[in-house]
């Protein structure tokens, strides 16, 4: 490959390279570029697939509609409700602090996604770091432990959701059976000193059917399903840290805690950014878990953003509104793009 020859002459000589590119380029053009282009055009029309002939150009109306759609949650009414969350409520039975704590937040797909992210992301980023740091120090049996911790990752979202529907079942699910066991044990103890044989009568909640528990239950399932991947990413990052640094620190009398805070955490920063970014994008795009486990219920409290998009485009209760759904998709793309750019900028700024 002589780098000096002109590009045109190189092209003439290497024209078969286009043949090599052809299969990939064809599939890619038809199934990625073309659909993106169509979605871009559709997002400025009021296209409904039920009546494609009557679609007309509506300018930015779809994007404006997002801001007044109560199901999205960025409309003035929901926003006013949000503002009231920061004031002391006038309803004594339902003070705002109680609403915050019980996740009784103003509704809408955006806020459901935010709720999921708040519940999911911190745990999903921090716990794997601790596990990876422990695994990194274990010698015997580490391969076994890694394998076992990693197994849930290869289980697909759909199968994992179905497994956890069983676990969350109020009747024969493991959580409520465990709660029942605790109750029976407590009753047995009470029975030793009194004649009341059923002093405690509590039962576990209907996890996926309860407004308070549905979202945390889904978030916990997602944590179980994906945690191993983050552990793996952290382990790769930990492997890159030079072990001599630790030896030097030990010579200088650094405690294990100091080693972790002063060596591990700073040097693991690039990995941490990657993990945070991937996890954040993943939680903004969450869909299948809710679709399978709760179908968005109870009372639409687990309709995520992508699930709402899917409903708009494909659910029988809507009219295959591809125009509006495309606009929703592009807003998601824009948010992800901005977040990625910010993380890159931020991580570069910190490194310097």
């Amino acid at each position: 490959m002589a780098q000096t020859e002109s590009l045109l002459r190189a092209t003439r000589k290497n024209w078969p390279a286009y043949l090599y590119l052809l299969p990939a380029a064809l599939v890619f053009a038809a199934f990625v570029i073309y659909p993106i282009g169509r979605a871009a055009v559709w997002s400025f029309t009021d296209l409904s697939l039920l009546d494609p002939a009557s679609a007309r150009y509506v300018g930015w109306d779809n994007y404006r509609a997002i801001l007044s759609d109560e199901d999205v949650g960025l409309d003035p009414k929901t926003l006013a409700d949000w503002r009231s969350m920061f004031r002391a409520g006038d309803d004594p039975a339902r003070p705002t602090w109680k609403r915050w704590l019980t996740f009784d937040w103003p509704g809408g797909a955006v806020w459901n996604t935010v709720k999921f992210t708040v519940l999911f992301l911190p745990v999903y980023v921090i716990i794997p770091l601790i596990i990876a740091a422990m695994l990194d120090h274990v010698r015997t049996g580490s391969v076994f432990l890694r394998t076992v911790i990693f197994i849930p990752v290869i289980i697909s979202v759909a199968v994992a959701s179905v497994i956890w529907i069983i676990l969350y079942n109020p009747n024969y699910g493991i959580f409520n059976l465990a709660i029942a066991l605790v109750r029976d044990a407590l009753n047995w103890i009470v029975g030793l000193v009194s004649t009341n044989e059923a002093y405690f009568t509590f039962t576990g909640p209907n996890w996926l059917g309860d407004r308070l528990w549905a979202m945390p239950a889904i978030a916990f399932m997602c944590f179980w399903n994906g945690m191993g991947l983050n552990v793996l990413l952290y382990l790769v990052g930990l492997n890159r840290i030079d072990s001599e640094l630790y030896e030097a620190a030990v010579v200088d009398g650094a405690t294990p805690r100091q080693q972790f805070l002063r060596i591990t955490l700073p040097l693991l920063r690039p990995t941490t950014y990657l993990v945070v970014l991937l996890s954040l994008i993943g939680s903004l795009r969450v869909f299948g878990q809710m679709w399978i486990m709760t179908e968005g219920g109870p009372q639409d409290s687990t309709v995520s953003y992508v699930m709402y998009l899917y409903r708009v485009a494909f659910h029988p209760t809507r009219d295959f509104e591809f125009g509006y759904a495309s606009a929703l998709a592009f807003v998601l793309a824009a948010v992800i793009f901005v977040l990625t750019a910010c993380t890159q900028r931020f991580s570069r700024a910190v490194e310097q």
Partner: protein
Amino acid sequence: MTVGKRPIISYTLLIVIAIAGIVPFTWVIYGSFMPRSDIDAGRLWPSDGTDGFTLANYRLTFDKLQGFDLYYRNSLLLAVGGTFLVLLAGSLAAFALARYRFLGNRLIFLIFLLTIMVPAEVTLMGQFDLLLATGLYSTLTGLCLSYVAGNLVLTIFLMRNVFAGIPNDVIDAAAIDGASRWQVFWQVCMPIGANGLSACAILTFLNIWNEFTFALTMTVTDKAMTLPVGITLLQGQWSVTHSGALFATVMMSFVPMALVFVLLQKYFVRGLTAGAVKG
């Protein structure tokens, strides 16, 4: 580090975590051998009136498969076929982009890369419309093409790096020996890139095997339905009609994959690591 001097604590914690991660599987497996009446009554083990642990749930599941075998077959066909096509088309393109100078080389690669940033949801409606228009809606071919397109970029990106890393001398030596372009690709570069290829294969296979959203959108009939979508339908049916068969069905949907993983564990982790550090 914090725990370096107290391995017992970290061992205990890790073992507890590992066990907790396994419990969901074992719970389903255990329950699949319980008599239905005891499951519904919320018992932890078979009661005295029944025959004890039983295979009845499996008998029922195999008697009324309700498409289960089809879903498995479709998923396998798609994952194997799709992975093969992705590797072939992807490494061909990567080879051209990495080894040859021609007009548009940089631009084409840039277009591939830029689409990584676009979430798949953007292409969902367009692909649906395209498949309807071409008559490929709810066919394995249609879904396969969609998956190939969705997974190409990863292979192109990884393999372009691998191919670009091959020393020029190796290529030149082959050319002097009279190797054609195709022979350079097929007999020199592909064997050298075998490690990268296997990483791509594992990642692509897993992606296709696990994919849910597109499979849900692009299929309506059992004919092309994949396991992730099919299992949710079966879950819906069995959870109403027979909880024992529900346990057995769910068990059969994850055990083969988990076994394959445990056997090929080394390669899986290597493949996933290679893919994960790409960003």
